[in-house]
């Protein structure tokens, strides 16, 4: 589920296209509805007003779900140290992997994706039922 708002989104398009082709890494089917996705890729500046929208998208995804924050803006607000910009999406949704860069190159996207796949492969099946995980979601106000 790509959530692209700015230049990282453009970089993602080239990651998606034939030259880099994210499909080669087992991520062939991009969907634009949260209900059919496991991974939320947030690429670009998220303003405070966009925050609740992003949260809504996350809530609509079914468990198990992962979040990839791509680029400086999604990870920390980046250069936009401003009253209107969310200082990192981890203020509204829990993030699994951060990809640095402004914007990151497609290789970095692919690396981030593979780290998510690492998590997917290795995390315990019971993790989503653990108290730790429940407390984490609770801290974001998501049940």
């Amino acid at each position, binding site marked *: 589920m790509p959530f692209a708002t700015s230049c990282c989104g453009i970089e993602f398009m080239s990651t998606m296209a034939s030259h880099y082709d994210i499909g080669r890494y087992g991520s062939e089917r991009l969907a634009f509805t949260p209900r059919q996705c496991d991974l939320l890729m947030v690429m670009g500046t998220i303003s*405070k*007003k966009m*925050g609740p929208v992003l949260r809504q998208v996350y809530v609509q995804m079914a468990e198990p779900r992962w979040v990839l924050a791509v680029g400086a803006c999604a990870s*920390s607000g980046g250069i936009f*140290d*401003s*009253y*209107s*910009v969310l*200082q*990192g999406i981890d*203020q509204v949704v829990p993030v699994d992997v951060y990809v640095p860069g402004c914007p990151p190159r497609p290789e970095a996207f692919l690396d981030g994706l593979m780290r998510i796949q690492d998590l997917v492969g290795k995390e315990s099946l019971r993790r989503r039922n653990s108290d730790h995980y429940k407390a984490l979601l609770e801290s974001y106000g998501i049940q």
Partner: protein
Amino acid sequence: MALTNKTIQDKLREKFGEQVYAFEEPYGLLTFAADKDINLKVLNFLHQDEELNFVFLTDLCGVHYPDNKGKELGVVYHLHNLEQNIRVRMKIYTEVGKPEVFTATSIFMAANWMERETFDFFGINFLGHPNMKRILNVDEMDYSPLRKEFPVEDQSRVDKDDEMFGRDVIRAF
């Protein structure tokens, strides 16, 4: 007859006397200030007068001059005469303690959103506006971010080391 800045100025002077002042023409754009109580009368005159015929509100915005005592907040109107392709700029000022200005929505529908934006960023209350609430910022925001006393950086931020994120000195106005 082609409309000139001089005719516009003369007509305004004739109609409103000393209540319109500070005429100047930076880069050929006729600019003047008016008392804030008569802003609607002046706008209406510019709009309705057959010769002036300023039918289009190009822009409406706020300005904050903290050192301008008693006239801290400004509202700037840009009007356009589409037939003759002439523009004017009108400024009105209000004190920061009581930032209340009459709304221009009854004359220009376009003023609706622009006044909401000015309200959002400068806290100027437009009396008589049909829907005076924030338009661009989050509804929970409790200050007017473009007033000079508020640095552009979000001061409520607590989750980061300011030094590591290039905010070594907090610039207070």
